[in-house]
């Protein structure tokens, strides 16, 4: 009896937390998105819709021989977690970093360049390559920061321009420095520069997983701490919310804008490094902006711009990717179906405020008490 009341009290405590509500709203968004995806599949091919849904839901467990699908889920999630984190960090400081793709490209190039050329570093090789990618991304990210701080250039427009500049610059630099002319793409980084697998290689032997996931986790923790526990994060957020008040409080708004963009860019740069410091994947000289930067925007928002939320949303994205891939074994759907479903889920997650109210109402009724929702104001 006593235990029961204690239990219900805990449930009540948890249910009253704003984060509980926003998280359950995200979960509802996902369910709604999957439902619409299911309807689309029903319309196209009713016979396979259930198989399709199953495959999407349990994608990470589709091929457990050697833990392949589970390992690959994580492997695909890592770059998206990182670009999502990059965008989210900027969002929290009041900046819209639509330039993650450019920062990622520059970071990838520098990482691969180091990976190809600096084999003398031995066991430090991959670490230096990742750090190089991070610095390069930070440099690239700081440009829109500087332009905004000193010249009042809107970061969205400068980032869009810098995305293309990064793309062409990297194409040119690859051709001039680390070019494999036979295949018209960049050379492969040396083995020492590739991200090690450590024990993950034994846990998921047939997958491509590597320690990128740990890098992502470390960055998630660091950004969470910066944003929530430090004076530095306090300053960054203040400047994002109210430049005038920050100036009044003696903060250097210019410095903070530049730092926020540099950190955001640095994270995107790490994403680039992690993507290409692997076996059998090569930087292309094709003039395309890499999609990961844009996906990061969606993931950052799906994760409510909180580092931990982004981490979970990124894993979820990886699971969807895998689900979409294994969908090909069980059904006849055109591969685009998974992109459609992802888009629908993202769309529904945009409705999260509405869903939050829905959850809050539900809980209020159940708990017979006013329940508060966080209006996502810390998102933008």
């Amino acid at each position, binding site marked *: 009896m006593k235990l029961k009341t204690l239990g219900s009290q805990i449930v009540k405590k948890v249910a009253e937390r704003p984060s509980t509500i926003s998280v359950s709203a995200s979960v509802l968004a996902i369910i709604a998105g999957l439902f619409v995806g299911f309807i689309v599949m029903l319309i196209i091919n009713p016979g396979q819709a259930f*198989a399709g849904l199953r495959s999407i839901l349990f994608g990470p467990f589709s*091929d457990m021989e050697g833990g*392949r699908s589970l390992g*690959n889920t994580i492997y*695909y999630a890592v770059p998206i977690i990182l670009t999502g984190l990059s965008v989210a960090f900027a969002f929290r400081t009041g900046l819209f970093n639509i330039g993650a793709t450019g920062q990622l490209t520059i970071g990838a190039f520098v990482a691969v360049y180091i990976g190809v050329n600096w084999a003398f570093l031995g066991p430090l090789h991959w670490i230096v390559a990742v750090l190089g990618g991070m610095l390069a991304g930070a440099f690239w990210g700081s440009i829109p920061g500087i332009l905004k701080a000193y010249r009042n250039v809107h970061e969205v427009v400068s980032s869009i321009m810098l995305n293309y500049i990064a793309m062409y610059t990297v*194409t040119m630099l690859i*051709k001039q420095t680390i*070019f494999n*002319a*036979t*295949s*018209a793409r960049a050379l*492969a980084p040396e083995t020492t520069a590739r991200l090690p697998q450590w024990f993950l290689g034994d846990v998921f032997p047939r997958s*491509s997983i590597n320690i990128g996931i740990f890098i992502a986790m470390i960055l998630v923790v660091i950004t969470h701490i910066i944003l929530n526990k430090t004076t530095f994060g306090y300053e960054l957020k203040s400047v994002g919310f109210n430049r005038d008040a920050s100036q009044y409080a003696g903060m250097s708004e210019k410095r903070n804008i530049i730092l926020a963009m540099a950190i955001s860019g640095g994270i995107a740069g790490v994403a680039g490094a992690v993507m290409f410091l*692997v*076996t*059998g*994947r*090569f930087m*292309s*000289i*094709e*003039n*395309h902006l890499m999609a990961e930067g844009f996906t990061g925007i969606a993931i950052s928002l799906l994760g409510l711009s909180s580092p931990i939320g982004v981490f979970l949303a990124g894993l979820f994205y990886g699971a969807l*990717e*895998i689900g*979409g*891939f*294994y969908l*090909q*074994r*069980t059904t*006849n759907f055109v*591969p685009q179906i998974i992109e459609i479903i992802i888009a629908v889920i993202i769309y529904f997650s945009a409705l999260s405020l509405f869903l939050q109210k829905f959850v809050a109402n539900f809980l209020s009724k159940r708990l017979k008490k006013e329940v508060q929702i966080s209006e996502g104001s810390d998102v933008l």
Partner: protein
Amino acid sequence: GGSEVETYEIAMITDAGDIDDESFNQGTWEGIVAYAEENNISHRYYRPAAVSDADYIATIDLAVSAGAKVVVTPGFLFEVAIYQAQQDHPDVMFILIDGVPHAGDWDGNIGDNTVSILFAEHESGFLAGYAAVHDGYTELGYMGGMAVPAVVRFGVGFVAGALYAANEAGVAISFPNDRYTYLGDFDAKDSHKNEALAWFSLGTEIIFAAAGGAGSSVMSAAEDSGNKMIGVDVDQSSISPTVVTSAMKGLGAAVQQVLAQFYADNFPGGELLIKNASEDGVALPMDTSRFATFSQAQYDSIHGRIASGAVSVPENYTELIAFLNAIGQTTAIVEGTIHP
């Protein structure tokens, strides 16, 4: 096990492009479909989750687990993956187009269960250049998508064919360095159209576009400015009246042929098939071409000479220079342009 899940005997894996890229993916797939439908064999294609060796291998494993007996992979990007897969799945047959399996060291190793098919794109390009000059065009240009091996071969052959014809016909043609380029991608967009328009305005009369979807922008430029272009891979004459001819390669036919051999139990495992003029692997669609003067006889003649080896078409820069020296022609095109 789960017998409700359908199985597919013939599987294709797409490379970086999509199934309707109007290039090797599409050509290969059309061959598979034609053969499979005629013989009522289950077939489907798979898209890897990303462009990397590991993803290709995972996709091949997926296809095999879904019952594939023969796996077709278009493009040199699959070389390493097939090297691995041909060992992992000894009972499955692999058809690798445009590449030879290797372990990442370019040391070719075609397994007993694998056939490599290479096309002589340079011969196809040669035919196009040759026909264009004999048809009266004296100012030509080449736009490739990116400098991947097949696209390089198309371009080199095109230059060689044009200058060879000029030599034969005794006309002076120009093929300056700045009329040979790779666009950097395979997309239709304003930049490519504008660049083509610029070339046309400088006097270029015809552009050979070996550039997938970007060819569409070249076509659009030709339409707007009243000029001509040459299509690639498949017969593109129906898309636009500006398409004089197309430098085709018989992807579909080659795939169908090997599939037929597979089902007739004489899969040419371990072989490297080179589809060139003599194998009818490359051609111009003479029926639909819009030539003013270039005749079927002329075509048959040059095709014969190439097939017989009387004309040996260069496939890289060094060979091109040697080839031109031999016929007393020169080109201003520098090596860095062809292999950027």
